[in-house]
């Protein structure tokens, strides 16, 4: 298999006649951007699956703690990856994958709230714990969830992207279309607020 896209950086390996990218072991070591480039250029399902395995959990965490609707989180992960699939040819291989992915997730979240005609800031009703079964929801879970939900939406989004999805500040800035400094300031304020909110809680 000869890779036709010049931007895929390891096309040089094809001169041996064996494409090392055909090896799943080798593919697992490849960068997100390379995998996305492969998927965009060749519809390589294995590359897409690998990206899913790397990021589905982080995207789900973003949805589950970015809003108070656990039941929808898995559906929104599915929608997000289907949007990645449809937008694969828009992916710019010169840019990072993660901010692009989470920008899509942020748009999915926004669309979800628009459709529900509710604001993300809407407080939880007393006793509401989303889809978490009562037996699986510990006092700590509830405390953390409530603390995060009490943050202003712009701080909550940054703190969730930072601590739940593992994005760096430059990546958060790119995802949300804000300055890196603004992302740091929001994170700083949110972390301090969370410390205060969680201060009295314990299992």
């Amino acid at each position, binding site marked *: 298999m000869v890779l036709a896209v010049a931007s895929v950086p390891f096309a040089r390996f094809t001169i041996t006649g064996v494409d090392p990218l055909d090896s799943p072991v080798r593919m697992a070591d490849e960068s997100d951007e390379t995998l996305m480039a492969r998927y965009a250029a060749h519809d390589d*399902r294995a590359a897409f*699956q690998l990206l*899913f*395995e790397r990021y*589905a*959990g*982080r995207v*789900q*965490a973003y949805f*589950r*703690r970015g809003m108070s609707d656990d039941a929808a989180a*898995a559906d929104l*992960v*599915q929608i997000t*990856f*289907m*949007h*990645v*699939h*449809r*937008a*694969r*040819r*828009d*992916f710019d291989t010169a840019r990072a994958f993660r901010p*692009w992915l989470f*920008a*899509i997730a942020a*748009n*999915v979240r*926004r*669309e979800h709230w*628009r*459709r529900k*005609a509710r604001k993300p800031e809407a407080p939880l009703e007393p006793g509401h714990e989303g889809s978490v079964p009562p037996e699986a929801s510990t006092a*700590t*879970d509830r*405390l*953390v*969830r409530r603390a*995060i939900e009490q943050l202003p939406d712009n701080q909550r989004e940054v*703190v969730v992207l930072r*601590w*739940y999805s593992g994005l760096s500040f430059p990546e958060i800035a790119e995802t*949300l*279309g804000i300055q890196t400094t603004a992302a*740091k*300031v929001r*994170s*700083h304020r949110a*972390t*301090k607020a*969370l*410390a205060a909110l*969680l201060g009295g*809680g314990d299992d």
Partner: protein
Amino acid sequence: MTDEPTPDPRIEADARSVSAVAPDLWSRIEAELDAPSAREALVSRSTAQRRLLGALGVLVIGTGVVAAQGVRADLEPAGWALFAACGGSFVLGSLAAAAWSLRSHGEAPLPGWPWVPLTWVAMMAGTALPWPGMVGVPPEAHAYCFGMSSVMVVLSTIWLALLERSARPVPWRVGLAAAGSGLAAFAFQSVFCPGVDLAHLVLGHGGAGIVWAALAVGGALILRRV
């Protein structure tokens, strides 16, 4: 502020607990990938291609409707040059609106509502352009031109909606697509109809874009609630 505060350990534990993905989630995605919708070939194209296709579609639809009606015979070369300047600006505005209405999932949404009324204002301002033509259009011609402009607007908006990736229509985008299509319809209808009475331009040529854009926005708002 140079050092980032360390998060509470309970947040780190919570982050681990909420990232456990349902085991069947990938198979659900694969099932959707393996059963693509009829529109998949269109919406999976790059946004640049979709914008190009959208603009081409608006031009083809406008040209087709004009071809079905015929071309006005009242203009001399100088009149056509003036007409091309007026109509060309409308068509360019229309293509820009069509392109703007199609966005990628990864792009931050733009505040869209201002663009719809702005497009309408541009359309109404266009009635003041020095369109070459004839005055004294009979009132029944208003309805005919409105109808033919509507055909262009509706077909163009449907075409742009087919190129849209969102499962549910986004009101301002579909409104912008319809309003932009109205600009093109205004110009294309003037290729057939020489009437330049203000009432005729507003009601017959420009009215369709305004009416259908309003209906499209209203319809999209309703569909989003379904």
